[in-house]
């Protein structure tokens, strides 16, 4: 897994974030104008050839394509602003993600925890979008399953349960051993993250 700050020589310090802050629309502008956060910028499209740990505050002035999963809570909390599209295998986010275009994930997009934000000005396309207590703003694209941040329905839980493996649910393995389906709940953020890091499948 690549730690994004190890690529620091490819990025420039973004001392004046006001121009980017004017381009984006949402809570992320508060992070962009926060003088205590040291932002960096990548000019043009950014292609990462493997899974990536975003440990920095980065603006990508183009598209970002990650040939693996993106996790922004491994070595530090990451903040990411993509002014084009973001394409990933999977995205697990404790920090902030802002995408000006579309967000496309082959697998899961999981936004977790009530600090930081999840904002997509375009549409979110993914196999499953799971939000848990996350300040979020997005439009729905192609999604097989979607679990809302604050008031998910039983139908949303059922649809997600139909596609996820039981191992991503708390007590899921134990219940499967007893021939039962996982409880109607969100997949566990921690179990999803650990399975991604171990290279184990999330979906049936």
């Amino acid at each position: 897994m690549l730690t994004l700050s190890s690529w620091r020589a490819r990025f420039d310090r973004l001392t004046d974030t006001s121009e980017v802050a004017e381009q984006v629309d949402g809570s992320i502008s508060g992070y962009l104008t926060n003088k205590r956060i040291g932002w960096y910028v990548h000019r043009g499209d950014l292609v990462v050839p493997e899974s990536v740990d975003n440990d920095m505050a980065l603006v990508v002035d183009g598209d970002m394509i990650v040939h693996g999963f993106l996790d922004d809570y491994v070595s530090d909390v990451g903040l990411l602003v993509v002014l084009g599209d973001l394409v990933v295998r999977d995205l697990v986010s404790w920090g902030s993600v802002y995408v000006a275009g579309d967000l496309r994930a082959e697998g899961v997009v999981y936004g977790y925890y009530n600090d930081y934000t999840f904002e997509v000005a375009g549409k979110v396309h993914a196999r499953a979008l799971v939000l848990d207590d996350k300040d979020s703003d997005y439009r729905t694209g192609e999604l097989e399953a979607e679990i809302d941040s604050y008031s998910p329905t039983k139908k949303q839980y059922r649809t997600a349960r139909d596609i996820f493996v039981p191992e991503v649910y708390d007590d899921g393995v134990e219940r499967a051993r007893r021939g039962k389906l996982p409880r109607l709940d969100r997949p566990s953020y921690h179990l999803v993250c650990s399975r991604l890091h171990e290279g184990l499948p999330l979906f049936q």
Partner: protein
Amino acid sequence: MLISRHRVLCCGQGKDVCTEMDELVSEAWRAATPKSRLRELADQDPRLARIVASRIGLSAKLAEELAVRASGAGGSDSAEGTAQGDVRVLRALAAQPATSPQRLTLLAQHADEQVRRSVALHRSTPKPALRVLLGDASAEVRRALAAREKLPRKIAAALLTDASADVRLALARRFEANPDHLRALARDPDPRIRRVVAALGHADGADLSDDDVRTRRIAVDRCGLEELAPHLDRLVRDPDAGVRQLCAYMRHNHSPAPLAVLAADPVPTVREYAAMNWYTPAEALAALAGDTDLRVLERISDNPFTPPQALAAVVEAVPSDLDGSSPSPMRSIISQLLDHPAIPPEALRALYAKNPPYFHMNDAMGQSNWPPDLVIEFALSYSAPVEGEEELRSYAEIDAARRSEPLDQVLATMLSSPIHCARRAAAANRHTPPQALAEYVRTADPEREEYGLDGVARNPSTPVEILNAWAAAGERHYELLKNPSLAASVLEAIAADDSTEYASQARRILEVRGYRAGTEETC
């Protein structure tokens, strides 16, 4: 920006065309789309071809097919005659992990700068292609080369003298920058590069005398005590106040002569940090007590090694009858003076006469330096009205005795009073006779008299054997460290007990005491 661009292109073509294109874009990205369909999509529209070329998990075979098609029939990889759409496909392929080394070698000579830039960064680009890129006319391409993950040593060495400062800067900022290369860049003409090298600590001291102010600041901030010490005589006279301020920090400077210079600096923030530093000489701290800047006085009143006469001088600067809305530094100054372990009794009396805000009798009874008449007054006022025959009798005895007997004897009497706050005030006060304190410790119930015994630990009149015993037993280290006349043996016992968080503080006090030997004045 794939979609954004696509949306612009759709504009004016009608909703149906947009929707259809949206669907094709989604199909081109979708993981389950079969390879045969991807070929069709790539043939259909250059925008879709670019998406296919960017796909996660693209096969090497399809990547090569797309490259051949985008490069033209001859596969020359020349941008001349290549459609713009095709160039975008090649840009995508130059960053695509599935692209082969052979194709990357060809793309390294493509006319498009962005294509070559991506090739320079690609993990699979072979060394001969990297050598070609080393001579690239575009600084952006060479900069990408300098920033790539694995950079052959000879190419890195060649980039050290690149004509472009941005290229050399990228080399310095590499995650695994070679220390020899960093040392070579320490004398680079571009200050941005020297700053990076200074921050990484590879300038071998050259950064401390750099022409660039920011480089010098970074260098000083990164230096440890020993590393900085030989340069301090010069740095404390640096034309930049930021450099001088950094030199005044306690983590950078324990040297008396340079600190004395900084304590007399014309810039208040520099004096402020000198006033905070425990190693600033007593005479310099005394001089700072007359400073006109409140922030400096605030730091002086918080420095545990400020000499008593300097604290008394700060008290003189406190105005009378301040209200709660007085400026913030003055509020801190008063609070810190009231709590300072070295403040002389008469200075406390003078401060009390000014009717300071934030004064609490309860706090004063726990402080060791209050004059005896005042602390007795506080104890009687605070405990009134007392209840019960014993307390009433004791109250009357203390009240009568303070008018007729020596006050140290009154304090000794208070230690055996049934009135709790009378015992507590006498236990903490330095005017209470040592023998009375020893007797109090011998007979006190440790649980019931916890606060009183804590006061004894802070009291400079307490016999050293008692303090030694507590220090060795790991008891009351926090309170002992507030005692202004703590014997070295007590400090050594605390310093030796690494199980507590106070050991390092005790070691630091011993170190400062050693440094100040012969100059320290006791309260």
